C-alpha cells in the first residue's frame, strides 16, 4: 500500500553536495571550479540548487515572508505608533483591543499600549535570538572543526569535555547566573550562547571527520597550506549546509529560552521588555484581560512556527538525500 512513497527517479548523484572531489586533485587549493562541469548532469552550484528547491517549498517561503514581515514591523513599527514604550495613557487602563483610542491591541494594567510594547519586546527577543545564536555558532563551529580536524587524543579529549557539558543541568546554571549577576541583556546573550553551542560542535565535528579524508583536503595538504587555513577556508565552508539548518533551528530555541527566563522573572529588566516578560505579565492578568496573554503569545508562537518551518525547508533543500 505504501510502497509508492519511494520514487526512484533514476538519478543517483552521489557526492553531489560538494563541488569538488574528482579523481584527480584540482590544480589550486580552492576546489570550486569543477573542471568536469560541462558533462556533469546539472551545472548548478549547491547554493543555487538549494535556493531553487527552497523557493519551491511553499510553507518555507510563506514562513520566510512572514518572518521578514515580523522583523520589519518590530523594527519600524514603533516609529509609526503614537505611544512610547513606557508611556501611560491615563484614560485607558487595561482596555481591550479597539480602534477608537489608537490602542489597536489594547493596553496593559498600567495603561501602556500593548502593540507598542509587543513590538519593542520583539526587538529584544529577536536581538537576543540573533546574538546568542551567533555566539553559539562561532564557538560551536570553531570547536567542532578543530576537534574533528586535529583528531586523535585532542579530539577525544575535546569531545569528552562536550559530554561533560551535556550532562550539566544547564537551565539551573543559567538561572543561577541570572540571579547572581543581575538581569542584564548582555549576560543573557552570553549565557544562552554559551549553553547552545554543544550540538553545533558535534555536528561540525561529524562533518569535519567526513570531509578531512576527501581529496581536495589532501590536495591542500600536499600544496603546503597551513592547518589553520585548511580549517577556515576549506573545512568550515564545506560543512556549512547542516550548520545553516542548525542555526535556523537554534534561533527559536534561544527565543524560547529567553522567554522562559523572562517568565520566571529572570530575563530583561524594566524599562526593557521582551515577549517572555509580556507573556508573564499576561498570565497574571489572564482572567480580566486575556488579550495581554494572547497578543505576545501570538507573536512568539508565529515566530517560532515560521523559524521551524524555514529550518525544515532548508534541511530538505540542502540535504542531498532528499533530492
Amino acid at each position: 500500500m505504501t510502497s509508492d512513497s519511494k520514487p526512484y527517479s533514476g538519478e543517483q548523484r552521489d557526492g553531489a553536495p560538494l563541488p569538488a572531489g574528482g579523481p584527480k586533485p584540482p590544480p589550486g587549493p580552492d576546489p570550486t571550479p569543477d573542471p568536469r562541469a560541462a558533462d556533469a548532469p546539472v551545472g548548478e552550484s549547491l547554493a543555487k540548487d538549494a535556493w531553487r528547491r527552497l523557493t519551491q517549498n511553499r510553507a518555507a517561503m510563506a514562513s520566510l515572508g512572514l518572518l521578514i514581515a515580523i522583523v520589519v514591523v518590530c523594527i519600524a513599527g514603533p516609529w509609526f505608533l503614537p505611544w512610547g514604550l513606557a508611556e501611560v495613557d491615563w484614560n485607558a487602563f487595561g482596555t481591550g483591543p479597539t480602534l477608537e483610542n489608537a490602542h489597536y491591541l489594547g493596553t496593559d494594567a498600567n495603561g501602556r499600549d500593548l502593540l507598542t510594547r509587543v513590538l519593542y519586546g520583539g526587538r529584544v527577543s529577536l536581538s537576543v535570538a540573533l546574538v546568542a545564536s551567533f555566539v553559539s555558532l562561532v564557538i560551536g563551529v570553531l570547536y567542532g572543526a578543530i576537534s574533528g580536524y586535529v583528531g586523535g587524543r585532542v579530539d577525544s579529549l575535546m569531545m569528552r569535555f562536550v559530554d561533560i557539558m551535556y550532562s550539566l543541568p544547564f537551565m539551573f546554571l543559567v538561572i543561577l547566573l541570572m540571579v547572581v549577576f543581575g538581569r542584564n541583556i548582555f549576560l543573557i546573550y552570553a549565557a544562552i550562547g554559551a549553553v547552545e553551542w554543544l550540538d553545533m560542535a558535534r555536528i561540525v565535528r561529524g562533518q569535519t571527520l567526513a570531509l578531512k579524508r576527501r581529496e581536495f583536503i589532501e590536495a591542500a595538504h600536499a600544496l603546503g597550506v597551513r592547518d589553520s587555513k585548511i580549517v577556515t577556508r576549506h573545512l568550515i565552508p564545506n560543512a556549512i549546509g547542516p550548520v545553516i539548518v542548525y542555526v535556523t533551528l537554534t534561533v527559536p530555541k534561544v527565543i524560547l529560552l529567553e522567554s522562559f527566563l523572562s517568565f520566571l522573572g529572570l530575563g530583561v529588566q524594566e524599562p526593557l521588555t521582551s515577549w517572555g516578560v509580556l507573556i508573564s505579565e499576561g498570565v497574571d492578568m489572564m482572567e480580566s484581560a486575556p488579550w495581554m496573554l494572547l497578543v505576545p503569545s501570538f507573536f512568539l508562537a508565529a515566530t517560532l512556527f515560521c523559524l521551524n518551518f524555514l529550518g525544515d525547508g532548508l534541511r530538505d533543500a540542502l540535504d542531498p538525500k532528499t533530492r
Partner: protein
Amino acid sequence: MLSYTLKRLLMAIPTLLIVITISFFLMRVAPGGPFDGERQLPPEIEANLKAAYHLDEPLPMQYLRYMGNLLEGDFGPSFKYKDFSVTELIMQGFPVSLEIGGLAILLALLVGLPLGIAAAIRRNSTVDYLVMGTALTGIAVPNFVIAPIFALVFGVLLAWLPAGGWNGGAWPNLVLPVVALSIQQIAYIARMMRASMIETLGSHFIRTARAKGLSETEVIWRHAIRPAMLPVVSYLGPAIAGIITGSVVIEQIFGIPGIGRYFVQGALNRDYTLVMGTVVFYGVLIVLMNLIVDLLYSALDPQIRYDD
C-alpha cells in the same frame, strides 16, 4: 556491559565536580547573603549566625567543608526553611516532581510514538499533515503559555479540573500539569518517529521483507518499528532534561510543591545550601538518566555493543 557502566559512572565524577564547583562559587560571588531580610540583624547576631554556619571562614575552606559533607551525603541545613535540612526538602519535593515528570514522559511516548508512526505510514496524506501541523504548533507554543491557558479554560471557565494546587497528588490535580508538560515532548517525539520511520521503511531490509511477501502490518510491526525507535530512545536523555527544566515553570504556574519551585525560590533568597543541593541532585539525576538511556539503546540495537 558492566565495565562500560562502571566506566560511565567514573566519568560522571568530573562532571559532578564541575557542577558543584561552578554552582558553589557562582552562588558565593552573588551580592547579598541568606541573612539579608527586611529586618536588619544586629551585627553581633549576624556574626554569630555566620559563625554557626561557617560562613565566616575563607571561601576555599568553606568549599572543602561543603565537599567533605557532600561525600557523607550531607547537603547541609536550609537557610530559609527553618528546621529543615536540604536533604529533607529534596526528599519532600522530589517524589512530587518525579510523579509529574514521569507521567509526562510516559504520556509523551504513548501519544507521540503512535502519532509519528501513523504519519509515516500515511505519508503526505491528510493524517500526516494534521499530525505534523499539530506537532509544529506544540513546538511553537511554549509550555508556559499552554499551561496558564489550560488552567484558565479547564480550571476556571469550564471548572472540570482544579486550576492549581497539589492536594496530595490526587489525579484531578495531576492532569493539567502533566498534559502541559508533555505537549512539547509529544511534538518532538512524533516528528522524530515519523522521520526515522520513513527512513526505515525505505531501507533494504524492509524491501526484502516485502519481497518475501509479508503483509504490510507484519512488515511494520515485526521489522520497522524497533529500528525506527532508536533515535527516539537516544532523544530520551534530552527529553528528560527538558521535562525537568519545564517542570520549574509548570510547578510555578500550578503551585506544585516540587523541586523546581524550591530551586527558583532558593536562588532568589540566596539559600546557598538549598540551591547547591538541588543542582547537585539534578546533576546526578541527569547523569544516571543518560546512562540508562544509553544502556537501553544498546539493548534495542543489536549492532551496538559496549564491550570495552
